[in-house]
């Protein structure tokens, strides 16, 4: 084994978290919290900045916000390799579990848990109208499973590389068609009216355009410069754009949200409670199911991680597009960002400590 890989594998056969995640991503919650503070300060002490930015609109779409959202989403879309879908026949048990949990269970448990806490348990603490907006944000998070970070979670749990590629491409294709109908359905039963054309516009702007642009960019660059240049040079340069776009979006968002947070600081904790419960629940449903079906650990772990983790850039984008920067829905999706990394690292530890409860990966004979 090469030196670099040996260093990455600890005695308990799990890579060190520091090998897969740098300082920025390990402490994402801290940077998000700082972005919240910076945004509130900007809104309070230099209100002219967000006011000026909010004037740049076209067809009721804020141009600065659209640019920041594309900056967050495009780098994720451009690295999607749809040809991996051709491996859909491998590890069918894993794919059945993860697809069912992600699309038939996760959005609905998110809705149920968030509704129960925000509309019932916390009813004395959150005004009903605001609670409904927070519920809308939770619904958006529940309908958007992770699409990129799952590679890091899979690496940290020594997941099957080829299976992770396939499950991400399957998930991305389903997301294209299922995200909008699930969101509209769940918002509908929550008595949150969102016109279909608004949903269609936000899906077009923040899923179809970045996905189409990402696909075309990928095809064009690989044809011109080769796949190795694309992976090793282009993606390396583009990768920091997503976290920078995320932090700038959050600063702008909280420049508008300042009053809401200053008046209700406890709401962040209240929103976090159902999101935390949902994350653990979804992980244990998929992980427990995989154990019951005797799925190898290197498939069970990434299969459970993808649903537990959220594509929060998409959720933040959809919340802003559907409800506005100043909405409770946008705030709820940001709380999702705030808790994401610590929760997922806790699940990585659980997965690594329970590895021996699963059958070992089988290396099928090549035959011939």
């Amino acid at each position, binding site marked *: *084994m*090469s030196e*670099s*890989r040996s260093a*990455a594998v600890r005695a308990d056969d799990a*890579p060190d978290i520091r*090998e*897969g*995640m*740098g300082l*920025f*991503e390990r402490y*994402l919650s801290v940077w998000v919290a700082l972005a919240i503070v910076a945004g509130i300060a900007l809104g309070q002490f230099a209100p002219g900045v967000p006011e000026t930015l909010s004037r740049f609109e076209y067809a009721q779409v804020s141009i600065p916000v659209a640019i920041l959202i594309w900056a*967050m989403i495009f*780098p*994720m879309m451009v*690295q999607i390799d749809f*040809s*991996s879908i*051709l*491996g*859909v*026949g*491998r590890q069918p048990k894993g794919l059945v579990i993860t697809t069912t949990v992600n699309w038939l269970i996760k959005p609905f448990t998110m809705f149920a848990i968030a509704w129960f806490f925000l509309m019932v348990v916390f009813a004395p603490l959150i005004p009903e109208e605001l609670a409904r907006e927070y519920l809308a944000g939770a619904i958006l998070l529940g309908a958007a499973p*992770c699409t*990129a*970070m799952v*590679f*890091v979670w*899979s*690496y940290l749990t*020594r*997941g099957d*590389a*080829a299976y*992770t*590629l396939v499950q991400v491409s399957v998930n991305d294709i389903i997301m294209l068609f299922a995200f909008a109908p699930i969101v509209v359905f769940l918002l509908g039963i929550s008595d949150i009216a969102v016109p279909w054309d608004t949903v269609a516009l936000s899906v077009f702007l923040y899923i179809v355009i970045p996905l189409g642009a990402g696909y075309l960019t990928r095809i064009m660059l690989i044809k011109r410069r*080769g*796949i*190795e*240049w694309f*992976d*090793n040079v282009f*993606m*390396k340069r*583009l*990768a*920091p754009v*997503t*976290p920078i776009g*995320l932090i700038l979006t959050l600063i702008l968002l909280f420049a508008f949200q300042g009053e809401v947070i200053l008046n209700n600081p406890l709401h962040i904790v209240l929103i976090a409670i159902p999101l935390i419960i949902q994350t653990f629940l979804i992980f244990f449903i998929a992980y427990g199911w995989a154990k019951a079906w005797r799925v190898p650990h*290197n498939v069970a772990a990434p299969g459970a991680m993808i649903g537990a983790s959220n594509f*929060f*850039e998409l959720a933040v984008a959809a919340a802003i597009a559907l409800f506005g920067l100043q909405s409770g829905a946008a705030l709820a999706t940001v709380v999702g960002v705030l808790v994401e*990394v610590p929760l997922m690292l806790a699940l990585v530890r659980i997965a690594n400590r329970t590895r021996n409860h699963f059958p070992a990966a089988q*290396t*099928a004979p*090549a*035959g*011939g």
Partner: protein
Amino acid sequence: MVIRFSPEARQWLQGRHAAVTVRVSTRHGCCGGAAGVPVVEPGLPEKPSAYRQLGVDGITVYLAPELESNDAYTIRVEGFLGLKRLFVDGATLSSGKE
């Protein structure tokens, strides 16, 4: 270091490609962070001299140095509707850091 081809992969490559490249493709996370995903592609790499060359079943395998290990890799072909793609089994994800 053992590399094998599944019979289907060997048959698919026959007459199409005399070489395959096994390398690491880096995938970046949305929160930052990265993971190296082992992938296999038909054809030669951009810089063949940077790879280790192995002859397996009459096919030249160009193996990226970071994938050299004591593991056994199996190259398979999978697909449907006449579309096929190669996958490499047995290689684990690595840190996306260089």
